[in-house]
């Protein structure tokens, strides 16, 4: 559209009416006194249109992707072979590459390599291990753009997030744990220097929602404590972890210290059941977590699980509402809602409910859904077709259960690729499936409450317990809530903030063990 013409027009119209002529505000109803019914409220709507439309701002840097990828075992990339999986760009449905599926032979080789490397790596002085971790962190920073682009291509998350959140946190985790390498005995009081022992070979299985970040969360503490690693990325998002292996090569990480085997559930099963592993770590669904817990308990090896969630985000009427609404957005629409700790259950104190929902509606109108490679995209592509179908299925369930669906964003979704407009449900009852089950998508269930104790009761009434958010201006209420919420992380007047120094993990069916901080080290040392 021709903005100049319109501006000119506005300027001319802008020979502004003087104050006395200014139109009467139409909502100031006559004061009828308490005996009369109030006049029905007049609705004033803001217009979020295209008066000034942002031009496309695609990230255009090209990143090389090989036709096929093998595994990374004993410091070497293997050939892909015949047995492969396609890894797809969920925003375009294009096949990016073919990635090998690790069978028994590959898993054996990887575990053997990790075992062989283990003794030397563990015996290395902490300060020496630290050098490798520092170098890895620096190389991640130097190659951050490439990694961010690859993460977005392979996983569908907006480039804005992979650039500003994922990759910086990946580097942060290596930096943070580099610092621990030679100070482990301080993390475990009572044990002297050299008395903090690694497990040996750690098998790690990670999900597709934060592919490289989850890898960093697992690899960095394992290496810092002197373990070696066999790690399996999710089948839909293996590319960035494989790229990280290039960095391991560049910095001269001793071969076999980190090994990557690609594949789907079967590879995960082979790895987790391998007799050569000393520790199991898994992030993913609660269903798989339960199976792995059984395997680990039979083998008698330690396990940490970071599983699903249905986290409550609780807004009191005394909160700063505009910022709380911002917290709803980052709680549930961050990374398309593919976040295990997403604030997917919103609880609003009844007096504030109308205002919160009205402002949420307004805020969602300026969410930009679409091409994840566009720097202005807020909500990108759903990670896979399967996940999109699952989300759509739940949206239908919500409607069938009688909750009211609202999707104020209503962007024109791209014709190709897996996209879902962010949405929320009102009129949700605690018994509804959309209020109980993890959807792992941009779908929010809104409920109300009347008292703090009711909020606690309803927030804790879930098999999960990964995170929670509390929004209030009152400090005492905040601390009281934080103490009573059964969640691994309670965010106060914020949501979805992560830091390598801060432990992360769950209660109940959200898993056990912590990642990050001093607490996260415990999972990677003996005893």
């Amino acid at each position: 559209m021709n903005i100049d013409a319109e501006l000119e027009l506005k300027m001319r119209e802008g020979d502004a009416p003087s104050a006395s002529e200014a139109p009467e505000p139409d909502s100031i109803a006559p004061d009828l006194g308490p005996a009369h019914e109030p006049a029905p409220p007049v609705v004033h709507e803001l217009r979020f249109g295209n008066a000034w439309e942002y031009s496309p701002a695609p990230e255009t840097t090209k990143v090389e992707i090989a036709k096929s990828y093998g595994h990374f075992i004993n410091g070497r990339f293997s050939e892909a072979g015949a047995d492969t999986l396609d890894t797809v760009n969920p925003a375009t449905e294009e096949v990016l590459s073919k990635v090998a599926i690790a069978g028994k032979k590959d898993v054996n080789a990887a575990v053997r390599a990790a075992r062989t490397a283990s003794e030397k790596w563990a015996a290395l002085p902490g300060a020496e291990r630290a050098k490798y971790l520092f170098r890895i962190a620096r190389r991640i920073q130097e190659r951050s753009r490439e990694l961010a682009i690859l993460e977005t291509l392979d996983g569908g998350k907006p480039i804005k997030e992979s650039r500003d959140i994922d990759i910086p946190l990946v580097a942060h985790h290596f930096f943070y744990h580099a610092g621990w390498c030679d100070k482990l005995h301080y993390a475990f009081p009572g044990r002297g220097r050299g008395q903090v022992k690694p497990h040996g070979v750690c098998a790690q299985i990670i999900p597709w929602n934060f592919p490289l970040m989850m890898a960093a969360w697992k690899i960095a503490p394992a290496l810092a404590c002197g373990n070696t690693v066999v790690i399996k990325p999710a089948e839909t998002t293996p590319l960035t972890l494989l790229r990280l292996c290039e960095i391991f090569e560049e910095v001269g990480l001793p071969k076999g210290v980190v090994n990557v085997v690609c594949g789907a559930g079967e590879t995960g099963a082979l790895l987790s059941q391998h007799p050569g592993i000393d520790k199991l770590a898994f992030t993913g669904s609660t269903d798989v977590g339960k199976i792995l817990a059984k395997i680990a308990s039979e083998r008698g090896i330690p396990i940490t699980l970071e599983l699903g969630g249905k986290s409550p985000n609780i807004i009191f009427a005394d909160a700063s509402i505009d910022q709380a609404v911002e917290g709803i957005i980052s709680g549930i629409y961050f990374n398309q809602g593919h976040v295990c700790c997403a604030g997917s259950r919103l609880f609003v104190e009844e007096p504030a409910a109308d205002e919160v929902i009205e402002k949420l509606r307004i805020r969602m109108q300026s969410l930009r859904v679409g091409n994840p490679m566009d720097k202005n995209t807020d909500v990108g592509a759903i990670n896979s077709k399967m996940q999109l179908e699952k989300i759509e299925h739940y949206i239908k369930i919500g409607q069938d259960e009688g909750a009211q669906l609202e999707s104020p964003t209503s962007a024109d979704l791209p014709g190709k690729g897996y996209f879902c407009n962010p949405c929320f449900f009102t009129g949700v009852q605690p018994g509804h499936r959309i209020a109980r089950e993890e959807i792992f998508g941009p779908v929010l269930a809104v409920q109300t409450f009347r008292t703090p104790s009711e909020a606690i009761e309803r927030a804790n009434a879930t098999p999960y317990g990964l995170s929670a958010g509390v929004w209030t201006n009152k400090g005492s209420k905040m601390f009281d809530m934080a103490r009573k919420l059964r969640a691994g992380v309670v965010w106060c007047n914020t949501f979805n903030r992560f830091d390598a120094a801060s432990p992360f993990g769950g209660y109940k069916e959200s898993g056990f063990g912590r990642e990050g901080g001093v607490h996260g080290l415990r999972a990677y040392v003996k005893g």
Partner: protein
Amino acid sequence: MTFSTVDRVMADQRAAAFATRSIKTEAKVAGLRMALSMVDLTTLEGADSPEKVRALCRKAITPDPFDESVPSAAAVCVYPTLVGVAREALRGTSINVASVATGFPSGQYPLEVRLDDVRRAIEAGANEIDMVISRGALLSGDEDRIRHEVASTKDVCVSTGEGAHLKVILETGELSTYDNVRMASEIAIDAGLTEYDFIKTSTGKVAPAATMGVTLVMLETVRDHFLKTGVRIGVKPAGGIRKAKQALHYLVMVKETLGDDWLTPELFRFGASGLSNDLLRQLRWKREGVYSAGWDQTVS
């Protein structure tokens, strides 16, 4: 009376997010031109002279002497004694004459003197008045005094000559907290501002002047007032906005907080002196592929 509260951490986080929007190609040109049309070209120095103001007015009319399609500024903003000069220099244009008044910048004068200041500025030809509030009164809890001074000033603006729009300067740098900014915004608006009146961040005499964070708080107050009443109040960040890129970030914030209706000089302004030249520099770069040198731009 209770006021809405603001959480600084999340408000700043939101404000910072606007600055990550990538404004390129056509959107950039349109944004730069829109920003130019929203500038209140300002000079507020003890050394201001009639000739200096005339130069500024010329710049307001034709910001880029080499490209007449560039939109004019929204207003020229001067001290009361120079209003007549500006009015004369801008005769025949639609550019507004804004005068700071009410004992600018401190406001530490008797109310009668401050109102007289307003009356004289309007009589001299100002059709926009940029008033200051008594920050000391606000900080000491005397909300009524602020209410009273804004209402009185508004009365003078309505009843003098052909009238003038009112812009209420909160001097956010002295209010210090976002809660105070929110409170001052609510008090000012509720004291009687009508459609196309403004709330404004700063005098430009106190650091920090305008920031994205305080402007966001003010935009949100304006939005809440609109949702309640349907009345559109304008917002004017002033001071500290020198670069085109900053201006575009502000426009992004307006677009995503208040929507299309506020993307007009009637409801959003930049109080600035140096900003225009950087906007022009960016426009020229878009047009000709070269940046203009400092000596290639109009001084004033």
